[in-house]
């Protein structure tokens, strides 16, 4: 097979989920021995595309041709068997097993049910040597390895299955600079053997470095296919990713912009958590929406959780209403008037099996209680008020939260803090998992809150959302604030540039 044989072709692939058309006509062509980069903003459909290829999702329409044959992968095992291996961001290794066991997990060489342990170790060693990492001890527990080594083990697993196509989802997100160089060496070794790689990254410089060709996705569609990764101007790549078609309806900003002269509601000064974010300073005024944007791993969510006291800072000051806030204590933050809607609504914010009103009053049911006895009727009335204000649907506070749509669940979380007279709301990815129509509604809710005097500090990876909703925008990259400006003075491309600018170019370039 020559180097330019096409191994994989996707034509007009469509995948819809309830309320979202995640893939809306994707074209993709991957050749043997190339590194094919996928580029696109959050929500552009990259993850869905990977999952279609890995056999997790089945496409609704369109054609997949794999090695010259029309193919359908009903499940991940089928995709693996066909020679497509996927390395997800959260590596799916078993921490308690050895390196060798992980590499051969699920297809151990065996005889009459007994694993041939010697052979497993020998072959694992061979595979690691092939990857240029013979130094990784095959008997070591995977959980004790650094992230970079884990990634190599993951790739080793793909090799052990004789994969012809390796899909890597943001492999560099968890790696330090020198480890990225190492990763690239390994990838080059693989492509030299004729293995195709689909490489996903937000960092343009990496794409220039390792990529051969680029396909750009936007809103589930291929907007540009097979661009040259080395020579295509950055401007062109970025413009292909931006200018989203989905109509976001943002509420108008209030006439008089929140006065930055007045004393800030929240003042964060030099906040640092080692390895997560460093020296972050920012202000939020009452009635103002401040949006933080940045890539996953830029320290945004960690920053929010630290302000809320769920993590303890290593340095820095948090001041609320002129008073210093005790660090690392959620009850103290709640008492000072802070409220938070965390990123993982279901696992971090809601008691799914309980009715709406109990979730709304979760943070302050004690206020409705008398001498320790709760007053359900009073709680329901209060929750009803909140439901009215937030336009909760259905307007039934006895309904179990599990049965609500994503947008309405988010309203329940926001409503919780409204009830307690919260002065500052911290919103982490408020529209994640919320379908497009309900988003506009949530935006209006957030804006109305701000207009009523609440300060909002919001994190979002969707640049248009931050630009459209926030009064001021803070851009974070690798744990640091790289830009802070009024939303009106920024445009999508500028922010994307800031967000994605590769650290390798600025930092440890040899």
């Amino acid at each position, binding site marked *: 097979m020559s180097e330019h044989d096409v191994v994989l072709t996707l034509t007009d692939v469509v995948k819809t989920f309830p309320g979202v058309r995640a893939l809306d006509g994707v074209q993709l062509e991957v050749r043997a021995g190339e590194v094919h980069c996928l580029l696109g903003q959050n929500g552009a459909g990259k993850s869905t595309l990977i999952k279609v290829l890995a056999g997790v999702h089945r496409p609704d329409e369109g054609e997949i041709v794999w090695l010259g044959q029309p193919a359908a992968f009903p499940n991940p095992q089928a995709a693996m068997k066909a020679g497509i291996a996927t390395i997800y961001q959260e590596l799916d290794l078993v921490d308690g097993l050895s390196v060798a066991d992980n590499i051969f997990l699920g297809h151990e060489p065996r005889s009459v049910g007994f694993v041939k342990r010697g052979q497993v170790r020998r072959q694992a060693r061979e595979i690691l040597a092939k990857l240029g990492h013979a130094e990784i001890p095959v008997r070591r527990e995977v959980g004790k390895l650094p992230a970079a080594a884990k990634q190599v083990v993951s790739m080793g697993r793909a090799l052990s299955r004789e994969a012809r196509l390796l899909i890597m989802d943001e492999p560099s997100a968890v790696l330090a600079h020198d480890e990225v160089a190492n990763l690239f060496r390994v990838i080059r070794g693989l492509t030299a053997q004729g293995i195709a790689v689909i490489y996903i990254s937000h960092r343009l410089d990496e794409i220039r470095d390792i990529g051969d060709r680029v396909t750009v996705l936007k809103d589930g569609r291929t907007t540009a296919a097979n661009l040259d990764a080395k020579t295509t101007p950055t401007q062109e790549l970025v413009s292909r990713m931006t200018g989203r078609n989905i109509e976001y309806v943002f509420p108008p900003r209030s006439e008089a912009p929140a006065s930055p002269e007045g004393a800030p509601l929240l003042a964060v000064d030099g906040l640092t958590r080692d390895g997560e974010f460093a020296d972050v300073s920012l202000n939020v005024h009452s009635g103002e929406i401040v949006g933080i944007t940045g890539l996953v791993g830029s320290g945004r969510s960690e920053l929010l959780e630290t302000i809320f006291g769920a993590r303890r800072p290593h340095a820095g000051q948090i001041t609320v209403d002129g008073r210093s806030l005790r660090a690392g204590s959620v009850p103290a933050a709640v008492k000072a008037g802070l409220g938070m809607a965390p990123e993982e609504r279901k*696992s971090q914010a*809601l008691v799914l*099996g*309980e*009715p709406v009103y109990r979730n709304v009053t979760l*943070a302050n049911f004690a206020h409705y209680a008398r001498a320790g006895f709760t007053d359900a009727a009073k709680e329901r009335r209060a929750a009803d008020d909140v439901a009215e204000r937030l336009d909760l649907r259905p307007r039934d506070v006895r309904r179990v939260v*599990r*049965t609500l749509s994503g947008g*309405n669940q988010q309203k329940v979380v926001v409503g919780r803090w409204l009830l307690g007279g919260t002065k500052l709301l911290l919103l982490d990815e408020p529209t994640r998992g919320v379908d497009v129509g309900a988003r506009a509604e949530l935006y209006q809710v957030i804006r109305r809150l701000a207009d009523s005097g609440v300060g909002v500090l919001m994190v979002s990876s969707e640049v248009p959302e931050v630009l459209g909703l926030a009064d001021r925008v803070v851009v974070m990259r690798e744990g640091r604030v790289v830009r802070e400006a009024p939303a009106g003075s920024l445009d999508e491309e500028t922010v994307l540039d800031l967000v994605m600018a590769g650290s390798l170019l600025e930092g440890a370039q040899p």
Partner: protein
Amino acid sequence: MTDIVKSPAETAPEPAGAPTLDRRTGWWADDASEPVRRNLGLVVVLVAIWVVGAITVPRIFLHAGQLWDNELIVLQQSAAIGVIAIGMTFVIIGGGIDLSVGALVALTSVWCTTQATQAYGPAGMVFAALVVGTIAGLVNGFLIAYGRVVAFIATLAMLVAARGLAQLISGKRTQRVNIENVAITNIAENRILGIPILVWMLLVVGAIGWVVLNRTTFGRRTFATGGNPEAARLAGINLRLHTMLLYGLSGLCCGIAAIMVVAQATAGAPDHGDLYELDAIAACIIGGTALAGGRGSIVGAILGVFVFKGITNLFIVNNLEQEYQLIVKGAIIVGAVLLQQFRVGSLRQFRKQPT
């Protein structure tokens, strides 16, 4: 603008796996009534036990006086386990488990019947039992909440250690209740309004437990802690303190149960309360308390104990061997959990799924 905004939200599909609630209406169909419906199921099981009794042993079950006496025996035998199951219900709803309850009953029964304690009279004995039980429970809770020991392991260690301590204190002997402390043993013998005091104790503890669980902030925190600990923490609830208190509460219930056991046996002994933990946990599960936490009912736990003891009684009055009884109990535990998992609503969904 509003049209574009509102229509998709209204047609937003329910997330997969959501129960189909729309067709049912009224309180009876409400989620709030779900525990009540399940408890009624347990009542049906109790009635079934009586029916079997009426068929197999008509001389007891078809004579009002005989039946009344027999059922009072069942209730009396349920009392101590019932009190323990109430504490256990709190712990399990809060997302934990307490394996040490049987051993704590033994330890407390021994502690409150030493000559030194008995010198303080019946009130001193009761006081000692409640305090020792609570402190032992708080030790469990401290290890689990602040020492981050897994509940299973911490209470397993307490199970072993508490029984050892009970043997040490008693010198492996049974400690009789002195004649001057006859007030204690009277608990097992006397009746109020024709109902044994032991049964009254269970009813009172059950009523208090129900109110605390369903009508107080403590109860609300318990549900939140077990239902979603992270959400509870981020809502400003002091998870660790609450977890510790839950085990303290379970220990307190063990102390109360120990007094009842001492009264019945007219003695404290290091082998009291053997395997009570299993009976209590089984009763909670039959009563619809989810081992994963966040869901459960006091009434269910008490009915669960009644079902267990009712079956034991049925076997005894039929002169059947104990081994059959154990097999039937095992089947009931599994049956109750299976019933919880495949309720009618979920059956409907189950059929829809292509497998």
